[in-house]
């Protein structure tokens, strides 16, 4: 720390609390209606993502409940084919694009700065823009659904069914454009996360001291950057084929429907890891906290995350085993799809070792984490089955796959998510959730989930394909379908109790201390909920588990201004202080840009000229966004006409 020396200063508690109050004023969120739309506080943006994603989760669940009601009996006439085909499309699209990835993004935006000890995220206006685009996309999809132009070709929208010849009207276009909205939101969130974790860490937080969930978010963000362009290309070429007569997928003019599948699944397989990797970070977080000891195998766990991310890009053809591709090529993807179980296995063994050698406390978050073991492992085993080409030839596109995907996604991601939401609820809201209701909701969800999805393995094996709005009696599918419907109702009740718990706790829950779970990471060192500036004072980090292992009296970081929004930017590998940076103020322009972009994207479903004329408003909004408002706070560095800048005079502590 040659340019940021450790010195001794006579700091009193009174000086520190004065600084804290000044920081709270400086970082206070903007007020009023304009303030609401100008928000750049990462905790508020993160909370918006989480709440909006959970609302979509409920909507997606309602759609699924309707599907299950229709399938409870053979030849049921509750819902006809047109509506049913829209329901399963909307369910999949909602869960994958409007719930699973955004909720993890929301948790990331809320907690990443807290975990790495920073005052805020990098590029907060970009994050704000990401939220508005996400919200706009979701609203657009549901309004389309209500106007009867919602998509009905499944969540991956294969051509030619979704193409210009067989997909009349605008239904497939609403799907394709929804992709654009959500993919932009994800990409933006990924950039924000990477820059925050790389450059905003507290001094002393070397890379090998970064908490597991932050690592998971970092690796996921890299995956997003390399995976999302593929779906962007798939959805764009789909719209182009439909709107302006291109022939990417028209076999009569040299195109190929299989090209669409390659483009989509090159994204689509990593997509499930985008959902799953953050949840693995959450698992490490929960297991560590509720085993009261540092996680066993930190380096192995991080390596496993990175290995999963790389390998995840080499599996996509396993979604295409029935397409008739050459056998040797397919065998490679079988091998890769099975080998990816190895990093997952490493993680499971490390978590078992942690519990084995720790002091376990069975609080509701821990129960959800334990639920992962049962459900995800079963899902992983059925995954190994469908990874094999011969077996997949039988099981592809049947209810066996529906069972598999729900086991890995709900067991692998949703259960850890619910555990983490419970765990972090006190930190975010300042209230403790009700333990008893937490236990009840866990059991309802666990039992309901297995009752819903376990029978589907059998259904697939006795011949029931996916995406059927009804089935004939006499095939032996009746009882299993009825059981699945009963399970779905149980799950719905479980989800309801979770909601009741959250609402009750918000109104009447016990006040939460800073660290009710006696956990070890930095978010627990500040109040519940955190103040706008997150931390004060900010101490240099000395270990992986600062609240357990840092010696008392670590140096406090001083010299970052508290009268203006300033952050400390540190170096990538060793988190040494590098420079001070003016964090952007609240601004309405991200919202305006998002609305202008929304208008352009919706217009472009109807006319290609939207990309020309419709791109002008967002361009103007972005110019306003980036145009400087006066000089930056660091007036001391106004550049002379020639020559080098002067370093600022030492400002010292407030």
């Amino acid at each position, binding site marked *: 720390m040659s340019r940021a020396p450790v010195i001794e200063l006579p700091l009193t508690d009174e000086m520190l609390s004065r600084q804290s109050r000044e920081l709270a004023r400086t970082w206070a969120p903007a007020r009023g209606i304009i303030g609401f739309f100008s928000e750049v506080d990462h905790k508020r943006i993160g909370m918006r993502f989480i709440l909006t994603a959970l609302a979509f989760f409920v909507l997606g669940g309602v759609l699924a409940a309707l599907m299950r009601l229709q399938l409870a009996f053979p030849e049921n006439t509750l819902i006809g084919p047109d509506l049913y085909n829209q329901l399963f499309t909307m369910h999949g699209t909602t869960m994958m694009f409007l719930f699973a990835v955004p909720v993890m993004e929301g948790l990331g935006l809320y907690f990443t700065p807290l975990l790495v000890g920073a005052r805020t995220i990098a590029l907060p206006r970009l994050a704000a823009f990401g939220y508005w685009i996400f919200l706009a996309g979701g609203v657009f999809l549901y309004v389309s659904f209500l106007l009867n132009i919602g998509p009905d*070709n499944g969540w991956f929208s294969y051509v030619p069914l979704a193409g210009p010849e067989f997909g009349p009207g605008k239904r497939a276009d609403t799907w394709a454009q929804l992709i654009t909205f959500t993919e932009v939101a994800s990409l933006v969130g990924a950039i924000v996360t990477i820059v925050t974790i790389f450059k905003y860490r507290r001094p002393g937080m070397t890379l090998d001291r970064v908490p597991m969930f932050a690592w998971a978010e970092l690796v996921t963000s890299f995956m997003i950057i390399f995976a999302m362009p593929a779906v962007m290309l798939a959805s764009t070429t789909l719209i182009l084929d439909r709107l302006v007569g291109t022939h990417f997928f028209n076999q009569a003019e040299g195109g190929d429907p299989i090209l669409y599948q390659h483009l989509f699944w090159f994204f689509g397989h990593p997509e499930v890891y985008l959902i799953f990797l953050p949840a693995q970070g959450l698992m490490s977080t929960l297991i560590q906290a509720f085993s009261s000891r540092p996680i066993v195998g930190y380096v192995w766990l991080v390596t496993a995350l990175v290995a999963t991310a790389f390998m995840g890009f080499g599996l996509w053809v396993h979604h295409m085993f029935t397409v008739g591709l050459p056998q040797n090529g397919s065998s490679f993807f079988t091998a890769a799809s*099975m080998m990816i179980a190895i990093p997952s296995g490493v993680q499971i063994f490390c978590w078992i070792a942690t519990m084995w050698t720790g002091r376990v406390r069975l609080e509701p978050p821990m129960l959800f984490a334990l639920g992962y073991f049962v459900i995800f492992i079963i899902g992983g085993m059925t995954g190994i089955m469908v990874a094999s080409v*011969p077996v997949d*030839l039988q099981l592809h596109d049947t209810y066996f796959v529906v069972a598999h995907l729900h086991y890995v996604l709900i067991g692998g991601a949703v259960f850890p998510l619910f555990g983490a939401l419970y765990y972090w609820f006190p930190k975010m809201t300042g209230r403790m959730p009700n333990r008893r209701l937490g236990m009840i909701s866990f059991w309802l969800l666990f039992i309901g989930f297995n009752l819903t999805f376990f029978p589907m393995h059998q259904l697939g*094996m006795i011949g029931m394909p996916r995406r059927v709005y009804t089935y*004939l009696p006499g095939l032996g599918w009746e009882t299993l379908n009825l059981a699945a419907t009963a399970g779905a109702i149980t799950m719905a009740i479980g989800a309801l109790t979770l909601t009741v718990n959250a609402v009750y706790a918000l109104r009447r829950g016990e006040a939460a201390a800073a660290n009710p779970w006696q956990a070890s990471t930095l978010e627990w060192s500040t109040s519940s909920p955190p103040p706008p500036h997150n931390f004060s004072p900010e101490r240099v980090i000395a270990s992986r588990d600062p609240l357990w292992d840092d010696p008392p009296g670590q140096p406090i970081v001083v010299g970052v201004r508290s009268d203006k929004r300033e952050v400390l930017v540190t170096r990538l590998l060793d988190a040494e202080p590098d420079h001070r940076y003016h964090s952007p103020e609240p601004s309405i322009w991200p919202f305006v840009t998002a609305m202008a972009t929304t208008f352009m994207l919706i217009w472009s479903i109807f006319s290609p000229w939207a990309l020309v004329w419709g791109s002008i408003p967002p361009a103007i909004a972005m110019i306003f966004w980036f145009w400087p408002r006066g000089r930056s706070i660091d007036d001391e560095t106004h550049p002379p006409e020639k020559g080098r800048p002067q370093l600022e005079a030492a400002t010292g502590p407030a």
Partner: protein
Amino acid sequence: MLQSVLHAAGIQSARIEALWWVMFWVTTAVTLVVLALVVVAVRRGLAADAMDVTERSSLRRVAVGTVLTAVILLGLIGGSVITSRALASQRSADALMIEVTAYQWWWAVEYQHPEPEQRVRTANELHIPVGKTVAIKLLANDVIHSFWVPALHGKLDAIPGHEATLWLRADQAGVYRGQCAEYCGHQHAHMAFVVIAEPPDVFERWIQAQRQTAHAPATEQEQRGLHLVQRTACVMCHTIRGTAAGGRIAPDLTHFASRSTIGAGTRPRTREYLDQWIKDPQAIKPGNRMPTLGLSDADRSAIVAYLEQLR
């Protein structure tokens, strides 16, 4: 269990089922072992008050577990590759060649033969001789469909602009149901078919019968039925060889009464269901391509009588 992966009646499905059972037992054992470890870990953790922080020995066990996982996976990969090779080896130069074209929402079947007049066209039903290799060439007329008869083999997609061949060999006689397994629009749920495996001599008799032109109507009602068929919209879509009906965009009806279902497996082929179907196909299979013809009851009965004798 006519449509089950677990009741293999052919060589291909038998190989796959065998592999599946191996995977089932291996994965079940692994699941039980790992879950037992979780239970033990939790119990130890609940009972603990002091903490054992020697990371090294835990990591050694993690390493052992990882290596075991890799070994098991390599074994399963090997088993999978062996099965793939076995399936690929079941091709034969003198297989029975059948071309199946998938339409929204039915299956056109054409038995190949070097002489065009010996080719047999039917729909939604295949007969195959037991013990003989059959090569099914899959084509798609419109969107992607998937041909799947689980008792005999895994599925293969029919993709516009592509040709793919599914090799089958039934080893047991029986009636095996199949269903489209790639979402193909409105009535994907009602796009089934049947494969009937029968002794070779029975098969020969069947195919010879199928090669004949349509059975001539006998009674007056049946004759009237034929007359009506040739004068209404039926001829726009359907073929009945030996009559003026030559449409090619709907199932071939020449030997309609030799088949067991209507509407690609949607209803059994009985007089009553046939009458309902012709009266209002949209009520039974909404969105399918057959229009409502608006025939009088008497006309419809005559047509039903005629069709029912097209064995």
